[in-house]
């Protein structure tokens, strides 16, 4: 079993009298892409802030690279890349100059810059000043800056917000590659499709507590309805159950040559969330 890179154990946090995180517990092994899902205000960004020591917890234990986070050193933080909700770039500097700055700060090779510019679709705009960039270009530059030193652990807070579908797909491909190379990814998103695509495992956060934590497909199967949907030639859409009675009904439709398509009606992650929390996104 891979070593645990990041873990939380019974972690809680309150702002004044309001409990914002309640008894969070999870462990992330090396190379896993872990999704933290929930609507705005659920506590996703607050969790990232705790994990990156921007906030201090009230209770519980957090460990980073196998050590208590309070003992984490500067060398540990050199192994981390962070794209936060407020990640910002220098507006009067170009895209390439911003990446050069972060490469220098991180001690990364300048040769990474052309590669990242190419992957992020920014090669043609590398001399553009950040103040003249669109939101998507800024987001891609910030993501490239977070990846410049090939981190072992990557915190991504809504990494594809503001990106068009093509750029989003490219980011997803990059994250899959990074994960394949052993980079551990902690990703927050409220985009369920993104979580299904990118994450090996997801935790659904509701009102500061983890409502469920598993592989996306396992969650979807767990909350699957006992229902098969059959589209027929003359009888419209027929719903039947996943049991002996359903099998008999399906067999009868097949024998009659009525079946156009058969669907097992599994929910998507959004529906799982609704099921778990009673709330919509």
């Amino acid at each position, binding site marked *: 079993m891979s070593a645990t890179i990041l873990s939380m154990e019974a972690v809680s946090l309150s702002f004044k009298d309001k409990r914002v995180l309640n008894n969070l517990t999870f462990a992330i092994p090396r190379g896993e892409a872990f999704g933290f899902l929930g609507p705005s205000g659920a506590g996703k960004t607050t969790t990232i802030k705790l994990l990156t020591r*921007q906030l201090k917890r009230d209770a519980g234990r957090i460990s980073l690279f196998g050590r208590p986070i309070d003992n984490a050193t*500067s060398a540990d933080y050199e192994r981390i890349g*962070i794209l936060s909700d407020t990640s910002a*770039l220098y507006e*009067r500097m170009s895209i390439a100059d911003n990446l050069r700055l972060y490469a220098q*700060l*991180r001690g990364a090779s300048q040769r990474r810059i052309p590669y990242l510019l190419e992957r992020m679709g920014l090669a043609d705009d590398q001399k553009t000043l950040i103040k003249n960039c669109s939101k998507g270009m800024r987001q891609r530059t910030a993501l490239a800056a977070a990846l410049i030193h090939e981190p072992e652990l990557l915190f991504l807070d809504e990494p594809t917000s503001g990106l068009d579908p093509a750029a989003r797909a490219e980011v997803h491909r990059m994250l899959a590659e990074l994960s394949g190379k052993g980079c551990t990814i902690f990703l927050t998103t409220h985009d369920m499709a993104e979580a299904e695509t990118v994450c090996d495992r997801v935790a659904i956060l509701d009102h500061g507590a983890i409502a469920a934590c598993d592989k996306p497909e396992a969650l979807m199967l767990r909350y699957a309805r006992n229902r098969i949907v059959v589209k027929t030639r003359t009888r419209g859409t027929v719903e039947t159950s996943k049991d002996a009675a359903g099998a008999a009904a399906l067999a009868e439709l097949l024998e009659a040559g009525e079946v156009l398509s058969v669907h097992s009606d599994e929910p998507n992650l959004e529906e799982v969330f609704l099921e778990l929390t009673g709330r919509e996104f």
Partner: protein
Amino acid sequence: MNASVRKLGALMGKDVTDMLKNPTMIVCIVMPVAFVLLYRYIMGNVGGSMGMMGGADMGADADMETVEGLITYVLLNTALCMTIGMTSSAMLVYGLAEEKEKHTLRTLMLANVSAEQIMLARGLVTLVVTAVVEALCFFVSGAPMHLFAPYMAIGVLGALPIILLSLVLGLASRDQMTAGLYSVPILLVVIAPMLSGFSPMLGDIARFLPTGGAASLLRLATEGALFGSEAVLPLAVTAAWIVLGLVVFKLLYRKLATDN
């Protein structure tokens, strides 16, 4: 290369690049030079008029020397106060406030850059730029060259407490609007020695303000008495402000560096 040195170099490079492209910073750099140029033009005319009134006897020559010495002091004092007020203080406070407002300070800290490294880079760049602007002002003022070395030493020394206090004020500013609010009082305090000629009482107070010691040392330098016993008090005043600046900085920067 040592990681701290590497980061410091990167931060200083970034600060210089960003500063040269920032109109607010350019104004802070150009203003003191423009002020000295204007004062020289005005003072030159005043000196010329007094020379014409004095005639050619020995007493008039002595008066002319006094007038020229006074003009040199006024010009250099203006240069020093304006440079420290605009370049060492306003530029630094606005620069840091912008970093906080636009979240670039937080982003740097999330890239494993410490608050100490950011402050040190900002402080060093500001000190170097202050020295460059002070030197430009000196050459624009037309002051005699033998005053250059003492003027630069006094200028750099006088800028230190203001740089330290401005780092704290920059961190305390939530945004550039607040920075404006904080910069005005500190600018008034810094340029107070420039205005001390208008009132003896103001002059007495100004001697003990952060740039008061430097202004007194500058006066002694123009009078050729910099290495006399009279220099002890202004040196002590300047040293006291440097120590106070260090203490305030040490006490507050860590708390302020974790923005909001």
